């Protein structure tokens, strides 16, 4: 993965010194609350319901073992000994002291980490597929492009005060979209043109929140060298013409919709024509320089360990389940991609303790070339595990709480921290997740149900991506009481769409039963090959509605 050179180190150190100075001025009363707000947000610091929250950036989800160990130490020294993996693959601390934040940022900078632009009305952490570089069907590794975007967007002087936050995601797989690019402000899908040249299809104006939208394509093919100039044109048009009078209408999706995607695309094209040959135009040399950090690790020449794994599956049913659900195919023979699930019932989805962070670091060193990855579904990945060591790894992680074999099932849910932690939330989300996990505790039943994305957000900001869950749950406030609205049929894949609201909202206690009824309708109606989403698309909303509100 990317390693800082002297320039990156200098910028990181200067950033820490700057924020130390800003924090001192804020604590001395020289900056008002309102003036300090964007400065601290762009350094990841929120002031939350019960305590401050620090969102540490994990660029496109990649972590080295030394970084995991440092994160563990920070959660121990400055927090309560646990952290939370977010839906933008970042890591949040829930209880730091404001005056400690400059020191925390200093500790992070020592291991080439930071909290830059993890919040605020600026360009946020660029995300991608957690299987980048190790899956079979990608056109190119998207991570070098993510790193190039990271550097371009870091402290961009023109775009530090956009109308609203701005999120970019890159996907390179033709068949899957684990980065959910079509619900991003800019979604970049790697494609090849007829001449075989590499580039991007550009989606702009997708998003969740109050006005969920699937991002329309504004350019079918953007050559890779034009990536940064084109991004600059898009964000400039947004900075100039995006609405600033109403926070809820300030995202780029509202501008794209108001102008129409075609007119927006014309405006971008006109702007881009002016800057496309500027020095910001990428060079092959730069792309190759960054790509050199993402070359393959020293894989052993192996063959697939098919017989061994069959034998081990046969002898151990638990291992068999785990292998089926939590282990994915790797592009190299003899290797596998392992997802460490952070979805054990009784633990908030995505939470990890300091000890677990260290365990993941040790596992990364022992089994996966010292690297791990955070996922937007709030799990962790060891991307390069030898197949002949999977059984040994599985035995090791079973006692650590990472082997819950529920990946992609109903209980592998995405869930924001909700009203237990977040000042913005209308309702708690964690107790709902917990109650549903307890209701559906039979793994064989979960497997029988097949892949189901259940996503929970505690408010309209949609950090839990409820709009694109096959089943989405949204916390709402009704006259001071917490209620939950259910939507069905969302998807964040290539066939992205926004779920439809089922009807009036429910009290928290009712939620496990509501989900049970929805599942019953699916089970009664499905054909043999159908997933939940297939059945929903065939039968529509009504059968679910009739049962749930009967």
């Amino acid at each position, binding site marked *: 993965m990317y390693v800082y050179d002297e320039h990156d180190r200098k910028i990181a150190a*200067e950033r820490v010194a700057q924020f130390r100075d800003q924090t001192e001025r804020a604590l001395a009363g*020289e900056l008002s609350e309102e003036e300090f707000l964007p400065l601290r947000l762009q350094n990841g610091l929120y002031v939350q319901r019960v305590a401050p929250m620090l969102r540490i950036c994990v660029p496109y989800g990649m972590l080295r073992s030394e970084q995991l160990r440092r994160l563990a130490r920070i959660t121990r020294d400055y927090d309560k000994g646990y952290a939370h993996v977010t839906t933008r693959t970042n890591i949040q601390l829930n209880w730091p002291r404001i005056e400690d934040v400059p020191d925390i940022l200093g500790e992070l900078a020592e291991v080439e980490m930071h909290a830059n632009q993890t919040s605020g009305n600026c360009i946020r952490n660029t995300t991608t597929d957690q299987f980048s570089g190790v899956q079979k069907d990608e056109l190119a590794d998207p991570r070098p492009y993510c790193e190039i975007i990271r550097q371009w967007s870091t402290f961009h*002087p023109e775009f530090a005060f956009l109308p609203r936050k701005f999120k970019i995601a890159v996907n390179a797989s033709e068949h899957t979209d684990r980065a959910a690019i079509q619900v991003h402000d800019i979604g970049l899908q790697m494609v090849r043109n007829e001449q075989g040249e590499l580039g991007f299809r550009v989606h702009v104006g997708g998003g969740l929140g109050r006005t969920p939208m699937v991002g329309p394509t504004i350019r079918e093919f953007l050559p890779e060298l034009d990536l940064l100039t084109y991004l600059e044109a898009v964000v400039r048009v947004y*900075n100039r013409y995006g609405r600033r009078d109403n926070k809820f209408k300030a995202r780029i999706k509202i501008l794209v919709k108001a102008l129409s995607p075609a007119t927006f695309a014309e405006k971008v094209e006109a702007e881009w024509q002016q800057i496309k040959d500027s*020095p910001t135009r990428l060079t092959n040399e730069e792309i190759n320089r960054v790509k050199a950090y993402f070359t393959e690790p020293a894989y052993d020449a192996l063959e697939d360990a098919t017989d061994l794994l069959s034998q081990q599956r046969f002898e151990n049913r638990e291992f068999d389940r785990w292998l089926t659900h939590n282990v994915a195919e790797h592009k190299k023979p003899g290797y596998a991609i392992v997802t460490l699930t952070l979805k054990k019932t009784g633990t908030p989805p995505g939470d990890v303790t300091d000890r677990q962070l260290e365990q993941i670091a040790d596992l990364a060193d022992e089994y996966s070339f010292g690297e791990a990855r955070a996922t937007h579904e709030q799990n962790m990945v060891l991307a390069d595990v030898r197949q002949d060591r999977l059984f040994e790894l599985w035995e090791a992680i079973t006692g650590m709480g990472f082997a819950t074999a529920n990946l992609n099932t109903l209980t592998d849910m995405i869930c924001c921290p909700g009203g237990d932690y977040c000042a913005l939330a209308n309702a708690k989300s964690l107790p709902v997740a917990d109650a549903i996990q307890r209701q559906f505790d039979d793994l064989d039943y979960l497997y029988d149900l097949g892949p189901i994305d259940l996503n929970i957000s505690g408010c309209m900001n949609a950090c839990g991506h409820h709009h694109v869950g096959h089943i989405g749950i949204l916390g709402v406030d009704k006259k001071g009481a917490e209620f939950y609205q259910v939507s069905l049929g969302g998807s964040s894949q290539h066939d992205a769409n926004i779920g439809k609201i089922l009807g009036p909202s429910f009290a928290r206690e009712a939620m496990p039963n509501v989900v049970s009824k929805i599942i019953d309708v699916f089970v009664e109606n499905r054909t043999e090959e159908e997933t939940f989403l297939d059945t929903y698309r065939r039968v529509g909303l009504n059968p679910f509605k009739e049962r749930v509100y009967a």
Partner: protein
Amino acid sequence: MPDVIAADGTIRNDNWVVVARPAEGDSLDIPEGQPALIPADLWLAGYEHFTGRADIGVWFDSHDEPELLQGKVNELPLIAVNFPRFVDGRGYSIGRLLRERFGYAGEMRAIGDVLLDQLQFMKRCGFDSYVLRADKDITKAARCLNFFSETYQAAVDNDVPLFRRRAS
């Protein structure tokens, strides 16, 4: 008479005044014997009268389009851009366009809700003078302009991005 911060952080004093947009039906009230910044569209409306004058400059508000003065910017001794609220980032784009697209070579001033921590961005976007909001400590301007000695992306202050400098 405002204290004006230069791009190197030094402080000087000058007597340019910002003339507010007159209410509908009123005429522009330019003070006698003092250099004045007037709304850009009104300068254009009185072009014959104003062009070439060393004591008349213009100011753009954040929603104004700098394209308005395309081809004429270098007839102006001073252009100011108003930041009505510090979180309104449109002025940064206006600054870059005036410099990079329309080739403005004269002094460009940030006015309005100008705070210490925005100065670095203004400088990078081509502003070379700043009128800090009156309640802020002007002695800290030099430090806040210079937190960073290196930047990743190209802007007005350095049109070569780091990746091209790394390569050389």
